[in-house]
């Protein structure tokens, strides 16, 4: 479980890092810690995998990566592991998950593809389908972003 201090560090890092020369010192001050303590706690949380990393997150649309497609695949359960790994190996795939199939929605593998245009995403999906040998798939393009934010945990 997390200590109070660790929760404090997460709550300060889940937002925006200050754009000042010593951002960790500024956050440490808010938490009543020293800069060293704050950096050390952050590193420990990273080594435990609670914090994957510190990084910038961009808005793809504004950065020119205009098309985003969720490709859903109907894969026989015994092949899900193989196909999931093969899809994940493709550089164009940014996210790949197995999710439960339901009677209304039989698709069980999900791969996110980002491209500069719709046609590019469609080509990538077709190429992947041929590679993994699964023809039952659908490419669901996003037509609007209704919400995009980051989680506030603590």
């Amino acid at each position: 479980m997390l200590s109070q201090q660790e929760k404090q560090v997460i709550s300060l890092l889940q937002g925006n890092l200050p754009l000042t020369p010593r951002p960790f010192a500024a956050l440490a001050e808010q938490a009543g810690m020293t800069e060293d303590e704050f950096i050390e706690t952050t590193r420990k949380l990273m080594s435990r995998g609670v914090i994957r990393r510190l990084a910038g997150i961009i808005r793809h649309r504004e950065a020119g990566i205009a098309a985003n497609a969720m490709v859903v695949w109907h894969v026989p359960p015994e092949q899900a592991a193989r196909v999931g790994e093969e899809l994940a190996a493709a550089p164009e795939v940014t996210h790949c998950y197995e999710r439960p199939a339901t009677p209304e929605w039989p698709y069980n593998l999900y791969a996110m593809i980002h491209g500069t245009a719709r046609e590019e995403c469609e080509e990538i999906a077709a190429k992947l389908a041929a590679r993994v040998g699964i023809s039952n798939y659908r490419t669901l393009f996003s037509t609007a972003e209704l919400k995009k934010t980051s989680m506030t945990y603590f």
Partner: protein
Amino acid sequence: MPLPREAGDLVDALDRKLLTLVQKSFPVVPRPYAAIGEQLGIGEDEVLDRLGALKASGILRRLGAIINSRKLDFFSTLCAMKVPEDRVTEVAAVINRYPGVTHNYLREGEYNVWFTLICPSAREAQRIIEQIKEETGIQEMLNLPALRLFKVVVNFDLEREAARA
């Protein structure tokens, strides 16, 4: 001095390098912006100016920690709803009110509204899903928590994108 940039302006080559770099990893050291500047051959001030401009123009959404919600024992799921076209705005407002809803996209297909939900527990997620169904009167909702994770990458190589465009 970098030129002032307005929203919608294209980023320059150095911005792309900077964005590609900070998406991959941000150094956890006392003067991280100086460390980034060293890698790019520019000063700390210029790194701060450029990141500030990218933030202001909306290209850089956030600079901070990427948290693994599973390690915090949070439950996350992907939900899909069948929403009549003329009700999308209204239904999205109901869904988006929950702070655990972090992403929500309108997509093509019969299940057209897809959102992610992060909650302290699966039970809490189920409760929110039921509330959304009740409030919107829409029963057709899929709750699709990940069973297995094969890949999560959230950094884009903007230099490669620029080269291909």
